[in-house]
């Protein structure tokens, strides 16, 4: 044994002795007390459907609302199989779901033409960035508020859009792409900092967009990093953009009534995993679904590189997504919380059983927001 080994062992042994063998009870008690008052941060439909205290009636209503708004789109796409195109809803009027409940949506935002981007803000976090607000040149404003169940859409006036542009311009920081990460002071070895900071994408008058990212090191003292006036200004801007209701004047809103956002595209994930429970508890059999797309369930999508699980993904149009949802519903599948390798996917999940192989297949529909990334897999990194 050499000196290094001796030292390593001495140090390890000393640390083990120094470590308290158990935490005082008060630590766990206090933490769980705080947890009891804290909701989880999750995707919109998962939040809607997964809340354990949600009543059956609420759950059914929520499911009905989701299915109803997805069913609004009646047009068929070219790669739908012929039998699916038999009953389109050319008027775009709401199609009642099989539950028989009326649609909860009076006037969905079905326009697939996407206006130019004014801004899109994503907040940072330990597990990546999460959408906060998107504003389009035609005044459409889509917000993802985790206190609400689903992404919501409202409409700004031209003056309201201009007010937001003024907010951007006032910072002087949104004309060009830039990253305002902390810069260590000379001679200082800074600590690492986890997660990602916010990102703001701004539409430019000459076309294209500028992407501004930053990370405000929260503690303030300049012992590690240089002062961050840009990041502070951008944080203040992000706070303003996250609280539009608090400061936008009434005349900035063409329609302040929020309605569910109806996506023009879905990202569909298919995840297959072994079923540990009784076969009687498996959801509806996969083979009973009249899959409406040319690629069947087994061949649908491309494999996504993530851990060792079998996960496939494909982006489809809103109409295709709607057709698949209708087919699943027709087979008796119900939205709910099923095994998923990626629970942050903010979409509705259907489970299908495969009794022959004792597996459950989870099909998750993630609505894609305007100007958002439409690829598969880019967000699937830890």
């Amino acid at each position, binding site marked *: 044994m050499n000196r290094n080994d001796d*030292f*390593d062992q*001495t*140090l*390890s042994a*000393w*640390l*083990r*002795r*120094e*470590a*308290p*063998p*158990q*935490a*005082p009870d*008060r*630590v*766990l008690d*206090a*933490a*769980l007390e*705080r*947890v*009891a008052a*804290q*909701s*989880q*941060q*999750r*995707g919109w439909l*998962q939040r809607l459907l*997964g*809340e*354990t205290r949600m009543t059956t009636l609420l759950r059914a209503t929520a499911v009905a609302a989701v299915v109803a708004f997805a069913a609004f789109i009646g047009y068929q796409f070219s790669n739908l199989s012929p039998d699916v195109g038999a009953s389109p809803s050319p008027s775009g009027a709401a199609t009642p779901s099989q539950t028989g409940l009326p649609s909860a949506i009076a006037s969905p935002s079905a326009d697939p033409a996407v206006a130019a981007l004014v801004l899109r803000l994503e907040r940072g*976090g*330990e*597990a*990546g960035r999460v959408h906060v607000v998107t504003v389009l040149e035609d005044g459409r404003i889509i917000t993802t508020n985790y206190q609400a169940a689903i992404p919501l859409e409202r409409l700004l006036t031209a003056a309201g859009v201009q007010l937001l542009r003024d907010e951007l311009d006032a910072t002087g920081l949104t004309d060009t792409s830039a990253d305002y990460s902390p810069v260590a002071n000379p001679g200082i*070895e800074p*600590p*690492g*900092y*986890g*997660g990602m900071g916010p990102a703001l994408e701004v539409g430019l008058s000459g076309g294209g967009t500028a992407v501004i990212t930053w990370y405000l090191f*929260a*503690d*303030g*003292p300049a012992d590690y990093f240089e002062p961050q006036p840009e990041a502070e200004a951008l944080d203040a801007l992000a706070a303003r953009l996250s609280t539009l209701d608090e400061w936008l004047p009434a005349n900035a809103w063409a329609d302040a009534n929020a309605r569910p956002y109806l996506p023009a595209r879905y990202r569909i994930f298919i995840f297959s995993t072994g079923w540990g429970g009784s076969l009687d508890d498996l959801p509806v059999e996969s083979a009973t679904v009249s899959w409406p797309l040319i690629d069947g369930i087994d061949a649908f999508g491309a494999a996504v590189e*993530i*851990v060792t*699980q079998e996960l496939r993904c494909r982006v489809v149009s809103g109409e295709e997504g709607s057709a698949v949802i209708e087919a699943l519903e027709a087979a008796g599948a119900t939205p709910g*919380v099923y*095994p998923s*390798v*990626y*629970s*942050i996917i903010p979409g509705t999940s259907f489970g299908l059983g495969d009794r022959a192989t004792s597996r459950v297949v989870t099909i998750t529909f993630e609505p894609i927001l305007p100007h958002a990334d439409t690829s598969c897999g880019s967000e*699937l990194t*830890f």
Partner: protein
Amino acid sequence: MVQRELVALARNGDREAFSALAASVVDRLYATAMLILRDHSMADDATQETIVLAWRDLPSLRDPDRFDAWLRRLLVNACRDEGRRHRRRRPEITLLPIHEPVIGDSSAELADRDALERGFRRLTPEHRTVIVLHYYLGLSLPEVASATNAPLGTVKSRIHHATRALRAALEADSRSANMTRGGTA
């Protein structure tokens, strides 16, 4: 129920499963926080914060098998934040002795412990963090880099710097003891 199942249930909002999960990890979290922060009150806060954040952000954990690594990152961040908060409140962190010497320790061991305690106390929280993660939790250097969100080179540098400081503390203590023995012979 195995941890993976608890994580999967808690991720879907099962508070009972999360409570069981938290109970299974709290001792390890607290011990790690205590070693890094060397302060009961700060370790309390960092551990609590880690558990609350774990509950809040658990739906964002895509792979339940990565729960431990993910939780370590939360803890390291919580310790870092707690350390900074405390630095603003007080000019210097008060370092408390955690345990009384165990009966049966030899005088040489006690001397080593004192020397290590003094050397450890002089390290920055960032250096203490890498030492604790590597030598107490047994993480590899890439794992330490992941937990601290620092480049591997930075982690190696911190380990090198920290162990050199601790070795120096031990050697200085040893020299001092030899001189004392020599002087009294």
